[in-house]
């Protein structure tokens, strides 16, 4: 019963995408729409095959992922340190937090011109930008998690006469773990967005973003669509992977609410 209901909802879910693809195919073949705007699906498929066979696509993807990971590791690492400092020290919190809240309101991609002036257009600039994108949600969520640490847990730590390091390791970090993981999850999402953004605006060196920009300049719709498909798939896999890890690491928490 329930499996047939699930099958039914799956079938309904397929109606719109398949209908859209069919319309696309018909429109493209009948010449209703210029093929340059809407190339037939098999052309996109052929381009995909060609790019895969030549290894160009995989190379670009590998370059993007390496950048993404590097920026994420540096950014979230710095984010954890800064978050701990801001969360644990009242003085640091009072002095810095309001400014930080103002700084984070600067739309992410508005940092790119400044960063490219300071660090140029190569790998360094991109990793710095991706790191910035990853650090912000980690800092915000870690500080929030530490501030929300239950008073009772702190009292237990006081009874045990914990020193500062012990407090961090045994009280604050475990208590803040769920929010920290939310922050890291968001950091993964933003780091991937920043990777694509960095490659769009600082189009030097290999990368998926570079492939899309090159495709646009050559009016190669196949290539642009393929690139965006890859961007979406990676984003999807990263998001799902992070949710899965989160569930494994903190099974006691109900489904997280991410937007």
């Amino acid at each position, binding site marked *: 019963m329930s499996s047939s209901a699930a099958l039914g909802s799956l079938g309904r879910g397929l109606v719109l995408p398949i209908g859209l693809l069919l319309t696309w195919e018909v429109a493209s073949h009948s010449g209703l729409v210029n093929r340059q705007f809407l190339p037939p699906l098999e052309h996109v498929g052929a381009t995909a095959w060609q790019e895969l066979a030549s290894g160009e696509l995989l190379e670009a993807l590998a370059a993007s992922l390496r950048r993404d990971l590097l920026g994420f590791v540096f950014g979230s690492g710095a984010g954890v340190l800064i978050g701990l400092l801001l969360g644990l020290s009242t003085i640091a919190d009072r002095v810095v937090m309001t400014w930080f809240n103002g700084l984070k*309101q600067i739309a992410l991609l508005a940092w790119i011109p*400044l960063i490219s002036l300071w660090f140029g257009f190569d790998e360094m600039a991109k990793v710095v930008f991706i790191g910035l994108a990853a650090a912000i949600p980690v800092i915000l969520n870690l500080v929030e998690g530490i501030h929300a640490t239950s008073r009772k847990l702190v009292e237990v730590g006081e009874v045990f006469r914990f020193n500062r390091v012990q407090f961090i390791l045994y009280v604050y970090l475990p208590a803040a773990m769920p929010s920290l993981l939310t922050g890291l999850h968001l950091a993964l999402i933003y780091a991937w967005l920043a990777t694509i953004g960095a490659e769009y605006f600082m189009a030097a060196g290999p990368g998926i973003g570079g492939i899309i920009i090159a495709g*646009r300049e050559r009016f190669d719709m196949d290539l642009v669509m393929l690139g965006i498909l890859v961007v979406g798939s990676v*984003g999807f896999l990263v998001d799902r992977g992070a949710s899965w890890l989160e569930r494994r690491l903190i099974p006691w928490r109900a489904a997280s609410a991410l*937007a």
Partner: protein
Amino acid sequence: MSDAALRTTLEPRTTAVAGFRRISGRVSAAVLRQLTKLGWLLILPAIILPIWIVGTNHGWLPEQILPRPQDVLHTLRDMLASGELAQHAGYSLRRVAFGFGIGAAAGLITGSAMGLSRRVDDYVRPLFTAIAQVPAPAWIPLAMLLLGIGEGLKIVVIAKAAFVPVVMNTSAGIGNVPRAFIEVGETFRFTSLQMLRHVVLPGAIPPIFTGLRYGLTHAWIALVSVELLASSEGLGYLLVWGRQMFWLDTVLVAMIVIGVIGFVSDKILAVIETGLQRWRIDDVQ
């Protein structure tokens, strides 16, 4: 709200003078608190600004890397006085208003339909999820091929950015109205309209508003990226222009304005959001 009103009326009545003293004491304490907060706030600039001024005066860093703070202020004043800044900000604000308006309205309709009807959700959800996987800025090159680089492109990209979080939060907000509330409504034999008006909407409005807030943030990010890639006016264009001319003061001014507008609009929505959620907080207490 009623709780707070009760508390004040139940306060023991003292003589007018004592009451006045207490109130004035409370006011001055509040003023003092604000002043200390301001004092803490000023510490960071008090450290950074002198270093910045001395450093740039001695030429430790070339002007193309870090302009003197007085130059940034000067540029800000000039651009404000000439109306240049207001003109660019006006372009950007109009684009965000249109894009966000369209995206949020479409998102509210789609999200409500998905939250209210299981069937609509079944049909729409997979396609929506697929579209949502690619962030709005990443769509720009494709949208540029389809729509050119006119005003339409900007509106579509910004609307897409606002649409996704609004749909997600609206459908979740309506779908997650506690079962118990619905049962209360059923006990009262509410009609569907009454159910919507008295049960579903009050429960769903806070998450819907959170969605609108996210939508606005995403709309801002999309605006800046679309103006960076394809525009000849607006705050994002100002960034590109300043970057090309190596005018760092212009870049910094544009960033400051983007940050201030983002900060103010987010603050306004945050205040409304807290207002809407007040009954929740009272509920917990």
